[in-house]
């Protein structure tokens, strides 16, 4: 199996480059997920490094995983709705490789493989009526009457420390246009940016630069205040941690209703109990608030389940998805978008791919023909091996 990854370390948002701690439960895949998840350290903590080492070592141990670090996929070509190959390029030496395979998993987050191959996808917030996702408590902030492009934003985590002696920090006129007079000596997940004229993928670099100006500018402002002399920046990520962009459409679209109804499916392969947690930009409610700060709306739930049918493409026969580009609505993404839950998706897809390989079939056939064997295989995973 080829694992094509465009960064030098594994883990994406959980990596030591972005440093978001993993949330969610293990479901039936504790054995696998413990090898790659993180402790519940504060977001942005250098502790991410420990878990990075754990993750890389554990994955590298597997002889059947051929890891291509620093290879960025840039194209996927389908013929008769079957992906024939994915092209990738090395991010520093520019070499190219064409990966041909019977099955592909889109775990790019942004749904790139599906996008290039012509898979159906959605972006933005659906109308509240499309899937019946109203929650009167929050109305339009939760789910709008008319669909729109407001998605949850991307974040850049950052961290400060208090030095023993006073530390200088320059005034930053170039950051003023974004930070304005905002002052801050600490970051968190709510340093988040989304705007309806910006696309989280196409405008990713502008979003990143906006957040960097917000961070450096707000810290610079704070440094002018008496009492903050000893603060210094310890670390600022140079990568965006994304929450939401393209969502590929599967045979089942996971929505708010599946959560509210605690719907159980014959092919429930992912389970979660984390609240639905959907973000909006604070300046929508209070115009004066800086545009780079968000708030979260939480809908508490009992356990809910994601069916296997949300993990393969409806119209591209040999394409699975795992991660935040799985088949869901904007609200449906709110709960399971965290990394243990998306990790469950990856594990579930892995077992399905093995069965596809065994029977020489495409993903849908696992649901239609081999469901019993598939679910039994997953059930056995519940036992943690020493």
């Amino acid at each position, binding site marked *: 199996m080829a694992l094509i990854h465009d960064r030098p370390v594994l883990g994406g948002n959980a990596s030591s480059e972005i440093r978001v701690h993993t949330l969610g439960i293990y479901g039936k895949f504790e054995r696998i997920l413990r090898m790659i998840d993180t402790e519940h350290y504060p977001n942005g903590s250098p502790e991410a490094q420990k878990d990075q080492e754990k993750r890389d070592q554990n994955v590298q141990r597997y002889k059947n995983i051929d890891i291509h670090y620093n290879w960025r996929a840039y194209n996927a070509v389908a013929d008769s709705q079957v992906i024939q190959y994915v092209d990738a390029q090395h991010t520093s030496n520019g070499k190219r490789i064409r990966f041909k395979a019977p099955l592909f998993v889109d775990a790019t987050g942004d749904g790139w493989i599906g996008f290039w191959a012509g898979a159906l996808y959605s972006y933005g917030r659906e109308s509240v009526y499309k899937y019946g996702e109203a929650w009167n408590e929050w109305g*339009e902030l939760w789910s709008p009457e008319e669909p729109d492009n407001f998605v949850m934003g991307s974040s850049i985590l950052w961290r400060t420390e208090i030095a023993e002696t006073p530390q200088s920090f320059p005034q930053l006129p170039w950051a003023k246009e974004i930070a304005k007079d905002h002052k801050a000596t600490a970051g968190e997940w709510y340093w988040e940016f989304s705007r309806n004229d910006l696309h989280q993928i196409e405008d990713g670099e502008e979003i990143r630069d906006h957040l960097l100006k917000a961070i450096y500018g707000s810290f610079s402002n704070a440094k002018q205040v008496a009492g903050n002399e000893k603060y210094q920046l310890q670390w600022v990520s140079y990568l965006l941690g994304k929450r939401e962009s393209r969502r590929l459409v599967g045979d089942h679209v996971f929505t708010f209703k599946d959560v509210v109804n605690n719907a159980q499916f014959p092919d429930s392969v992912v389970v979660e109990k984390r609240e639905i947690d959907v973000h909006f930009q604070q300046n929508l409610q209070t115009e004066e608030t800086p545009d780079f700060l968000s708030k979260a709306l939480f809908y508490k739930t009992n356990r809910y389940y994601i069916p296997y049918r949300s993990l393969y493409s409806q119209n591209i026969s040999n394409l699975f998805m795992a991660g935040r580009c799985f088949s869901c609505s904007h609200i449906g993404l709110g709960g399971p978008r965290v990394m243990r839950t998306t990790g469950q998706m990856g594990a579930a897809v892995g077992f399905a791919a093995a069965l596809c390989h065994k029977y020489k079939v495409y993903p849908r056939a696992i649901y239609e023909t081999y469901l019993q064997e598939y679910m039994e295989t997953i059930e056995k995973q519940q036992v943690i091996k020493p």
Partner: protein
Amino acid sequence: MSLPNMNYRFLFRMAFVAVLGLGFLYIQPSKLAKNPPLYIAMNPEYQRIASEQLVFELQGSDSLLKHPVYLLSDEQKQPLLYAADIITPVCIDGLCKPMYLTLYWSLVGDYVGYGVFQDNLLTKFDHEPFETKDYSKFHELLLNKHSILERKNMADLFDQNVQATEKITFQGKEVDAVSGATKTEIKESVVEGALYSCFTAWHLAHGEVKEKIVQHLLSLYSPTLAQAFLHSSYEDYQFFALKQLDATAFAQNLPRIQDIFRTASPMTRLYILKKLPKESWKTEQVALPFFQTFATTDINTRTLLLNNLKYSHEK
């Protein structure tokens, strides 16, 4: 610490019921009349109250009690506020004591104020009475719809206490405890020494009650009330009214809607732009007042204004 076993739960329940019983005995029927609010964000409405009517009951979470909710109206029988007298147990570690207060909500179900029972004032868990600043902090907490308490269970709060003593170090440096940020946020938002009262009150003032009030309000939503809401100075009332308007009514109320557009938050502005029938953008007197705000409005609104330019052409 989070109520781990059956025996513990059983004791907890028993203590709970026993205290409830005491609570009932203790309260004199005459004290069930509305207590005037200590803090109220909608005083003009409160001053006009002439009558009250029992409209539904509120079932607090984890409570055996139902709290009667009243609609408060003016002399013309126009609704003004909702209110409920609350008697609820506040429990920690299986020990419970009753808390008495009157909660007030706006007509769209948002908490706006509270009153106390003069012979049963609010107390902290060690039975110390609330100080003056505690009463205002309590109101501040209840006003915060996004309080961190929203997503917490009682059990989480128990765990908070356990973790409070833990320090975590990494590479010799002390870093925040696991949920340090959360703990600080909780501590800063609640009345010191009254975490459980705050938690219980917040969950009664928000959540289920909002849905029920809106449902009830819709059952008596008349053209008079619709106009009152649309012309109200409260943005949430304006928004509620806008939501109830159909496309025709939207066009008929345009001058007022344009006023609201100029003063409301971006969220309301965006809603108006999305809801305004596409056809109406062709009429200059409809479109122009919206476009005239372009230079001063926020960027999200600008984007929608630009998107709507295409509907302003005759083609």
